[in-house]
């Protein structure tokens, strides 16, 4: 009994770390640019397919494919922001619609490029790790470790680098940042690309465990929505914490209640939290 619970929790934490990674990009874009990027899921899809392209179709090793795909999606994000988001950024609703339509455009382009069929990235590492109550795929453990590494790197970037500090300042107050000589446009462009890259990394890590298809990005997007708001928009510790909580909650609900309710529960919790504390669990009061 207790072993099952332990095993479930470990599984939940492992997967939750990756959820957190997927949600972080959304949080950064929300924090720095104050726009909801519905294309975030599409960048996730792109990350998965680029990893597929490099590792399967071009036969590169997994790590190279992973890095290349993250870089390319970063570049795509930057271009996307420049051409599509920047001209309309002040209009929250327009950005929302544009990124929604943009997500479909990307999905369709992926469909026409790679075909609508299900694709797989074979395991990049095989074997299992023993845990109480069973074993878990070694890939999950490693992916989790990589995800945590990326999060740690993110902290360092935000805390110590010039661009990171600039991002935090823009997030705090765009106008003030502008008067302090920060190139707000460039910071936002970078943040958007960065957000896209985080989505792509999460996809590259998750897709060997899951499956690739053109509309695969919607599910992580919706999950990321819930995580970001639940944890408090723009709060990175909040997002990481909530991501992991969501992972655990999902696995536990799936086991103790039913697998169909596990998708509903996070959103119910979200509504509950937001009714009590309108800025999310870790969000600052306005």
């Amino acid at each position, binding site marked *: 009994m207790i072993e099952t619970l332990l095993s479930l929790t470990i599984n939940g934490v492992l997967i939750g770390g990756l959820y957190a990674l997927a949600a972080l990009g959304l949080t950064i874009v929300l924090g720095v640019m104050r726009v909801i990027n519905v294309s975030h899921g599409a960048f996730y899809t792109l990350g998965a397919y680029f990893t597929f392209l490099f590792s399967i179709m071009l036969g590169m090793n997994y790590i190279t494919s992973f890095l290349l795909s993250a870089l390319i999606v970063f570049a795509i994000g930057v271009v996307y922001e420049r051409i599509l988001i920047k001209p309309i950024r002040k209009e929250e609703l327009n950005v929302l*619609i544009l990124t929604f339509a943009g997500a479909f455009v990307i999905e369709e382009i992926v469909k026409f490029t790679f075909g609508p069929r299900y694709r797989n990235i074979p395991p990049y590492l095989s074997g299992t790790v023993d845990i109480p109550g069973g074993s878990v795929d070694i890939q999950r453990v490693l992916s989790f470790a990589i995800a945590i590494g990326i999060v740690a790197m993110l902290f360092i970037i935000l805390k110590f680098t010039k661009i990171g500090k600039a991002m935090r300042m823009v997030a705090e107050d765009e106008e003030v940042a502008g008067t302090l000589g920060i190139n707000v446009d460039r910071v936002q462009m970078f943040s958007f690309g960065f957000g896209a890259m985080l989505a792509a990394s999460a996809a590259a890590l998750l897709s060997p465990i899951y499956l690739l298809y053109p509309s695969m990005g919607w599910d992580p997007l919706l999950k990321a*929505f819930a995580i970001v708001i639940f944890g408090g928009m723009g709060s990175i510790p909040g997002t990481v914490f909530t991501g992991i909580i969501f992972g655990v909650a999902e696995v536990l609900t799936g086991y103790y209640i039913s697998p169909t309710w596990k998708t509903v529960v996070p959103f119910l919790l979200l509504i509950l939290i937001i009714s009590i504390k*309108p800025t999310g669990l870790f969000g600052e009061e306005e």
Partner: protein
Amino acid sequence: MRMEKTKVSAGILEKKYAALIAFGIIAAIIPLITPSIYIIHVLILAHIFVIYAASWDILTGYTGQLNLGHAMFFGLSAYVVAITNTMLNLPLLLSTIAGVFSAFLLSLLVGVPCLRLRGPYLAITTFSFSWILFLLASSAMIWLSGGEEGVRGVKTFVVGSVPNYYLSLVLMILSVYLLYRIASSETGLILKAIKEDEDAAMACGIDTTRYKLLAFILSGIFAGIAGAFYAQYMRIVTVDVVTLELSASAITFSLIGGIGTIVGPAIGAYMLTILFEGFSWLADYRILIYNLIIVAFVLFLPGGLISLKEKVNKKRKMVIGNDRK
């Protein structure tokens, strides 16, 4: 809420009625000049989506409360009509009332927690409500909703496409007219003030909570009307009535037509429903082209089609001279 009488001068009145009558006549004779039930069918759907889009506009376009889950009102009403009509064997009229009433209740349920929320928090919370409904309908409660197979066998008020066409036409004109009247009244102005700046509106003495809730209710009820009509016309209700795509289409329709004008979203819904069908020969490429058009609109004509009219007017004014006041 009390509606103030609008002041219209007699001269303009005739002109406007001419436009309305022209629309009425053309719309009314369409079934007589086309033998195609397909065209009639698409137009019926267009009528339904016109109500749906206009009802979204009163909450988001006028009041600025970003609603990302508008399909929930439409969908819940449609499901309640279908379920009460087929499983409880309620008469269709009662089912319809139950459906619209359920949309009203949902608007309260969603509206109340949303009153304190702003920006992305509000947007994602409204989305969450609709997403929960989708998850319930598509998987967690398929014993009731039938999941993807849906609830079949809803009765209809009138049989056949042409009678449904006229019924939907009347319903559409009535709904849009009512919404437009509300939007053009003092109430509408107050809603718009809330959209412009909520704090300033409060400082003006506006009970923003009450008006926001009113907007939620109006929006929910009219979307509920659209959903109820949809259920009885389609005679089957599947998860398609609560999808993310349907919620998004309320926004798309409105943007293309012109947000915050009621008439704009109505035109947007009408044209896009027809356009989307007109694109059916594109088969696989349809979704791609459709979305590219939307992207282009957001970038190049964010005011929607209705802003074209203003641009033309401005030009005309410049030619005639500014002596119209």
